[in-house]
């Protein structure tokens, strides 16, 4: 256990470097931008918690986050900041129009409510979420919106634009509901434009919403061919108990079958894999029957993999230190006064 933790410290150090360097250089005019500045320390390994407000609290608890708003519209702007209600419908996280309210938006206070930003300037706002005591359990959704709405000329259509940080807040007992999902079926099809796709049915069997991402690989195809990995299309958000398709678009060169399709999906640190044998129809617009997917063992479960990798890195560090120590001792032995 001790070894594991040493290694986790080391792994974090390694990961932070490339992640910070990753964002692409900003073009000058990206308009109104927003980003989350704080994430909870206990969700360091959850990529969702670094982009969205994802948390679990008990009734009566409060939490606070900061967001940064950036004005790259090329002119001074007055930015309104407010919470807006959101719903998970049709497999998507959808923000309702305007400053729509729900129970969660009633608990959120964004201060300041207005930021006046010069061209190119940025400002910080605090998002305080206070959950009243006696609140029932369950997960609730909202978004912290930054909006520019200019009252334009007397006639015509005004265009408002707003961008937000999603809030997934779970309320309940001291223990957070477990997140889990299963891939139930895989279905091969050929789109009207001729591209083959695999549609996976995914069911959220846990107590928290999931944002799906992942890849599909094809193996053991005609003539022993392999293909992929192909990225799954993003944007599928599943509420607890919900079921929704996740689509993977493949290369047009892929034909026939049978292929062994292995789909690996993840939401935050959670990862699940399943495989099924699929055959792609030849005609555009056709689809094969859905095939029941076989769940694969969690060889890539972060709960197993991270400590394992950790132990390995810890061992390497220990060996290196020992070698270094031996060498220094030998060097000292050769040159130091002790040699005389």
């Amino acid at each position, binding site marked *: 256990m001790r070894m594991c933790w040493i290694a986790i410290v080391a792994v974090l150090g390694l990961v932070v470097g490339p992640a910070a360097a990753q*964002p692409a250089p900003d073009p000058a005019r990206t308009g109104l931008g927003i980003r989350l500045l704080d994430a909870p320390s206990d969700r360091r390994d959850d990529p969702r918690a*670094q982009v969205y407000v994802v948390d679990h609290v008990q009734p009566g608890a409060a939490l606070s986050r900061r967001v940064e708003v950036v004005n790259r519209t090329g002119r001074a702007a007055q930015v309104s900041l407010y919470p807006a209600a959101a719903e998970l419908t049709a497999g998507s996280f959808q923000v309702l129009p305007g400053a729509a309210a729900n129970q969660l938006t009633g608990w959120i206070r964004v201060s300041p409510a207005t930021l006046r930003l010069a061209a190119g300037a940025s400002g910080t706002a605090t998002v305080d979420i206070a959950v009243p005591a006696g609140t029932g359990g369950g997960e609730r959704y909202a978004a912290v919106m930054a909006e520019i709405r200019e009252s334009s000329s007397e006639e015509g259509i*005004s*265009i*408002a634009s*707003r961008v937000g940080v999603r809030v997934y807040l779970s309320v309940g007992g001291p223990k957070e509901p477990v997140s889990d999902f299963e891939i139930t079926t895989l279905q091969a099809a050929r789109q009207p434009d001729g591209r083959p796709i695999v549609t996976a049915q995914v069911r959220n069997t846990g107590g928290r919403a999931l944002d799906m991402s992942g890849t599909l690989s094809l193996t053991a195809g005609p003539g022993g061919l392999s293909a992929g990995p192909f990225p799954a299309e*993003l*944007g599928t958000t599943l509420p607890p108990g919900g079921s929704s398709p996740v689509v993977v678009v493949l290369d047009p060169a892929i034909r026939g079958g049978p292929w062994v399709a292995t789909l690996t999906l993840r939401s935050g640190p959670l990862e699940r894999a399943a495989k099924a044998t699929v055959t792609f129809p030849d005609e555009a617009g056709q689809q094969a029957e859905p095939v029941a997917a076989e769940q694969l063992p969690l060889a890539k479960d972060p709960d197993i993999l991270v400590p394992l990798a950790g132990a390995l890195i810890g061992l390497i560090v220990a060996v290196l230190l020992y070698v270094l120590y031996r060498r220094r001792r030998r060097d000292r032995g050769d040159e130091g006064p002790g040699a005389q």
Partner: protein
Amino acid sequence: MRKALALGTVALSLAGLAAAAAPASAADVTATFTVAAGTLSIATAATSANLGTATTSLTGTTVTGTLPKVTVTDNRGSTLGWNSSVASTAFTSGALTIAASKAKAYIVPTNGPTLTSAALSAVPSTTAIDAATGLTLGAAQVFVTATTTASNSVDYTPTVQVTIDSTVAAATYSGTISHTVV
């Protein structure tokens, strides 16, 4: 030297234990750390639009126009993607009103969505609502979904069609159309 090495190990182990202990007490006071990700942004080419003019008729008519180009830039460097939606207020002229549900939005294929830059070379395109299905502006519905991983920038120019029923009085109507990205 041996002692120093031992101390180093103990210090690291303590740091590990502290990290392990943190989640247990997180229910009351959540410790946070600073995130280094970039921003999710939206830009519109103009802040107003004119959808055009229609002549009222007994059988009703429609007016169709394009909105200013929308650019969504995701520099967060995450694998989570984004979605954009579009909604409208009712169109009014004094006491006269055309409901937002009379308007629908879509994107003609030549107007996007176009992936203008991405951190990865091979990426799937974005998906959007086409003219056939359209999207009523009276409710929240996802308009464009980024199916691209990593940082990306996407352009699209929406088209809006408003149905002018025979009961609509001739006037110049105005309203606000909002683009939302999360």
